């Protein structure tokens, strides 16, 4: 029979395989009813928190909600592809720092997200939430995402070792004080020619380190109108400070890196201080459990006496798809997950993240003493600094700007390593000019698209 098949055995076998696999695929497809609302997140701790919180919402509204966890970069690229291709997108999706501009670079008709401005005002969320946190989710004066967090940055330190060294952290008010202290404790303890103890963890080529310090100075890459905003005299000063503290022979910082390297450097006492946003304070508890009771927290030193004692690092926003079939329900879910006061205390205890809803900071959970950080009231410490967090602004080229600022710093670093102090200030100014010119070129390209209706 096989031989009588028109094209011989092989095509028949292929045909049988194709038919069988199609049948198997059809038979194994889930027969479950799709959820009424789908929410996508990139953070595992958010995923778990939402999974725990959703049954109550489902019961209250008589609907089903599915929460999906997608890798951070995949979420961004798939969401954008799905939006532009008009295919199925989650009803709600969390996006991260610097990404809203990417989704809103074209004309407004192309935006895939609902304009939430009127809903925010209608429900009074504009006053109840830290105002600065709306800025990164605002494009052309309209709000497109709800802020999930504040992410103030504090200085964490090895309390046990710092106390052993006789350092009183309450006397460190400015970065000048910190550097003076840091230079004293940065030492080659065993005399083998390699420094065994540094004061601070700072990446040599900028990245999050230079961003935190620029933001503390009130400098973001862009302003509210989308103009390049980092080329200022204060940015020059920050660059010079950074170059000295990461590259000069008397530097007091060390680049501890990420993951196990970071926790090992902290556990070994290779670094004593580290800039720690609220989200990272939670990760540190998990990654370095042996440091329980040995860590302390203090506000960041200010650039000048009485100045801002914090900065910000990272952020998440919740968007609602323009194509959702249930916009009101999606809005209710967004508010429930982000701003239902009664759940925020429990969630804070699980991940240490300060919510932007100011009234939640009075909950007992935020006053709990944290054993890991030597019994300090972690919630209260971070919440006190939350109102000082500087605003950040959206741009289609936010990530390009971050890369250009790092590139400018790297070029200055090469110059500094080769030529030292001579002409360094001029070099920093020139590199910032160069970075600004490059970004303006890009901004002009996007302006062409944004204005096309």
């Amino acid at each position, binding site marked *: 029979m096989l031989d009588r098949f028109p*094209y011989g055995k092989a095509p028949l076998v292929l045909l049988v395989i194709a038919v069988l696999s199609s049948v198997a695929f059809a038979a194994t497809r889930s027969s479950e009813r799709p959820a009424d609302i789908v929410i996508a997140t990139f953070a595992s701790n958010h995923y778990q928190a939402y999974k725990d919180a959703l049954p109550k919402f489902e019961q209250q509204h008589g609907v089903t909600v599915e929460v999906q966890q997608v890798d951070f970069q995949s979420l961004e*690229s798939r969401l*954008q592809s799905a*939006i*532009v*291709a008009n295919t199925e997108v989650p009803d709600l999706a969390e996006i991260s720092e610097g990404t809203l501009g*990417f989704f809103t*670079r*074209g*004309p407004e*008709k*192309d935006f895939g997200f609902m304009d939430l401005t009127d809903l925010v005002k209608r429900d009074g969320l504009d006053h109840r939430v830290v105002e600065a946190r709306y800025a990164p989710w605002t494009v052309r004066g309209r709000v497109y995402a709800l802020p999930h967090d504040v992410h103030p940055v504090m200085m964490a330190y090895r309390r046990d070792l710092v106390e052993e060294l006789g350092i009183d952290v309450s006397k460190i008010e400015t970065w000048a004080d910190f550097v003076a202290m840091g230079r004293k404790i940065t030492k080659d303890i065993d005399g083998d020619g*390699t420094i065994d103890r540094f004061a601070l963890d700072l*990446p*040599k*080529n*900028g*990245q999050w380190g230079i961003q935190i310090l620029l933001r503390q100075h009130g400098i973001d890459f862009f302003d509210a109108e989308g103009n390049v905003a980092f080329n200022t005299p204060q940015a020059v000063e920050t660059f010079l400070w950074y170059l000295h503290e990461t590259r000069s022979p008397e530097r007091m910082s060390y*680049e501890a*890196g*990420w993951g196990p*390297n970071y926790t*090992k450097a902290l556990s070994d006492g*290779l670094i004593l201080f580290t800039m720690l946003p609220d989200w990272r304070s939670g990760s540190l508890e998990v990654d370095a459990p042996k440091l329980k009771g040995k860590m302390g927290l203090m506000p960041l030193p200010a650039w000048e006496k009485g100045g801002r004692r914090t900065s910000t690092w990272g952020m998440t926003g919740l968007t609602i798809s323009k194509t959702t079939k249930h916009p009101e329900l999606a809005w209710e879910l967004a508010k429930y997950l982000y701003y239902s006061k009664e759940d925020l205390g429990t969630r804070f205890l699980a991940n240490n993240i300060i919510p932007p809803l100011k009234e939640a900071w009075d909950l007992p959970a935020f006053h709990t003493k944290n054993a890991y950080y030597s019994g300090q009231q972690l919630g209260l410490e971070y919440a006190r600094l939350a109102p000082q967090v500087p605003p950040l602004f959206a741009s*289609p*080229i936010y*990530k*390009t700007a*971050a*890369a250009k*600022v*790092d*590139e400018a710093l*790297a*070029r200055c*670093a*090469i110059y500094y390593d080769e030529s030292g102090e001579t002409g360094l200030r001029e070099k920093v100014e020139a590199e910032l000019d160069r970075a600004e010119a*490059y970004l303006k*070129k*890009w901004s002009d*390209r996007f302006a*062409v*698209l944004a204005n*096309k209706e």
Partner: protein
Amino acid sequence: MQSVVELEAPAGEDSGPVSVSKKKLGRPRRYYKGKTPYVFLLPYLVLTSIFFVYPFIRAIALAFYQTNGPRTKVFVGLDNFRFLLNDAIFHTALWNTIVFTCCSIFLQLPLALGLAMLLNSGQSKLENRLKGFFRLILFSPNLVGSIFVGVLFGVLLTPRYGLINRTLHGLVGWGLEKHWIETPALVMPALVLTSLWLYVGFNMVYFLAALQSVDKELEQAARIDGANPWQVFWNVTLPSIRHVVIFVVILSTVGSFNLFELPLAMLNRTNGFGPDNTGLTVITYLNEIAYRSGDLGLGSAVGWIVALLIMSCSFVQFRVSKVSDD
């Protein structure tokens, strides 16, 4: 002069006679008049048309537009190409790619050939067993995904705690605190080092296969005639495997121009690709432009420039090969 020979169609075919045309000094061509081969080809042709030919043609057009997905695009003529020609970052990416390609050709391939020659020597039973073992060892890095290798080397090259840094420090007293991925001068060496580990074994297999087909009697005759090992290699072995060498050179050139996963995995902790973009390649640049910035039009223009460069290089290499054949 052209002759046409009519052949009988295979039994059971409803097709007509099979025409075979022969060009003088050319390769004979066969045109089957029956529909059977074309039915078999149809799935391939349909899929290729949908997933290759159509996007290929669209990509040509797209290079002349600035886009925000399919909904909004603005015709910008040659502006995308003009932008790239004036973009210092594109120049850096191109330069880095050329440096990496040169390292692949002039460092990786000689090393692969050297290893292949070592594995090709010796004929005893034990040597043959060891050969198999080393072949597996040298080829095995290729069984691992390059993303994994990138992550792995990112860890191995960690200052103070990384295995490579500690080994170098132990052996030569240098490198313990070296930030390979954070120091502009060390980023490219780190990428080359990683790619050597990954691809030397792969290329070695090609060379080994070619070396095994070299006429041993010819080499023996050269030795009897007084040729030293270098002369045997240069005048007998290398010309005998030149087609494989050209093939591997072209493969390495194309592969190097398409370098993407390694820098992506190794340098992802930095904003951009290494300090001052020292690890940026044309394909990582394309990815940044097309997918991170969302400008598919400009991305297409980069793609076209890369395609033209690869085609030019391959063409030159083919010509060199042809000249050496003549």
